[in-house]
């Protein structure tokens, strides 16, 4: 069931075959959730975005044609538009999900289902590192954040990002470079704050690799 290509998945959805829903969720639910959560930082909002995105996909699947845009890019474009609307709304109303905060008003870390995987704690360190990265990514400007997530977290090609965001290739390249530069700067600053000893000054990736 997981070996379905996007073309098979689309045709099955267009035929209203129920098993296609399972494949759709298996292939795209976690990725969309990751993308949404990196962008908004809110667990519940990310779930809503995923749900709304799939609902829209089912609604519009009859009008979708493979030759226009790859199915994966099409789904992400829907999610991107929904997220943009939600983030615009939240930026105006400044609403904060209480579920995302602990008793001290700090943002909770959403443990994934694979929390504490049995590989001797390396997974736990990865997760901590991921949360540091996620916090730094959330601090990026919106356009840089979007490009960075699509390009390096979700692994889209430059051209696909260009088509999804309706921007020029040059601007996408520039946004991508500035996002990485700002992220490195933010992570290095965190290290400077956490490590008072200059000798211990290492970036998160270096620490993970034991450099």
């Amino acid at each position: 069931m997981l070996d379905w290509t996007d073309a098979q998945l689309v045709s099955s959805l267009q035929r209203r075959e129920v098993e296609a829903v399972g494949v759709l969720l298996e292939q795209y639910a976690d990725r969309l959730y990751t993308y949404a959560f990196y962008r908004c930082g809110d667990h519940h909002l990310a779930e809503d975005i995923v749900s709304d995105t799939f609902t829209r996909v089912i609604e519009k699947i009859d009008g979708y044609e493979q030759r226009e845009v790859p199915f994966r890019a099409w789904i992400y474009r829907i999610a991107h538009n929904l997220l943009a609307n939600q983030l615009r709304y939240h930026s105006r109303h400044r609403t904060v999900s209480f579920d995302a905060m602990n008793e001290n008003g700090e943002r909770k870390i959403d443990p994934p289902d694979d929390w504490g995987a049995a590989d001797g704690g390396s997974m736990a360190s990865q997760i901590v590192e991921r949360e540091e990265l996620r916090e730094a990514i959330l601090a990026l400007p919106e356009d840089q954040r979007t490009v960075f997530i699509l390009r390096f977290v979700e692994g889209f090609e430059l051209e696909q990002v260009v088509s999804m965001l309706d921007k020029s290739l040059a601007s996408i390249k520039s946004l991508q470079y500035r996002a990485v530069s700002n992220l490195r700067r933010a992570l290095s600053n965190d290290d400077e704050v956490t490590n008072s000893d200059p000798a211990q000054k290492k970036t998160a990736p270096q620490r993970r690799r034991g450099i």
Partner: protein
Amino acid sequence: MNEQHLEDLFQNSVALLEQGSSPAIAARIGNGAAAELLPLLEVVDTVRDLPPYRLQTTARAALSASLISQLGGVTAPVAQSSAPQVASSQPLPRSMAPRRLPNSDRWRLFLGVQKAIVAAVLVIAIAAIVIIIRLEQPSEPTGQPTPVGTVAPIVTLPAPTLAPIVTPEPIFTATPGPIPNVTATTAPTGTAVPTASPTNLPTATAAPAATVTPTALPEPTFTLAPAPTPAPVTTVRVAPVPPTARPPTAIPPRAVPTTTPSPTVVPPTAAAPTAAPTTARPTPSASATPKPPQPTVSYGSGGPTAKATAPAGATPTPKDDDDDHHGGGDEGKGGGPGK
């Protein structure tokens, strides 16, 4: 180093990184800028290796159930815990269904009305065609009477319009000879009276009953049906002659209608003369008043002058009125010039 150049180097080194190279190797592209590229590439490499987040199982189950119900209408149980979250995404598909139903009903109604209109138009069109066909059928028989044709030919000689009818008739050949003689003399007396008044027509028919029956045929009112049957083509031939003899152009038209079925049966009068002038007279007798003018025999002298004399006989006046009604073309014309 130029920022733009560093950006280009970063793009190239990222491409190497995506192909499987390590950050250190990818950074070598920059030569002198390798020290600046390496930390950037390490960030990228770290992000790419991070484990993804996973959607909670309860949320996933709820989402699956809602999508299945949306896709195929299958009602699957929804997880209790995530119900509030899922509910926010469900209103859309639910709200779509009721919108589509009324649209489909309207669409069906629209199609039904269209079909009904088309069917009604077809029925009306067919009915109209049938009615038209039936109306045309009775009109056709009018041309049946062969005798009519026989008379017409004579008249047509002068008139071009009638020519077609005449040509087919072989009878003509014989008639021309007698025509001149008869018309010259008889026309004045007999023809003048009958053509003038419609009443005369009936009288004329009466005459035909005796001999000139063919002339009577033309008249529809004259139930004297015998007229049509009487093949006496010979007599008929004579009848038309009078009109032709007089004024070439005007007469023909008269003759045609009269001969066939119409009242202008004037020919009968003419025929009367040929067969027996006296017999023809009787027909006018039917219309008592007009007869007196008959004495207008003065006509014999011919056209205009004769008419001038006719007025002398006061009695003829009534005839004149009749002529006007029927357009007793022949005589009326004659009087005109006299003035």
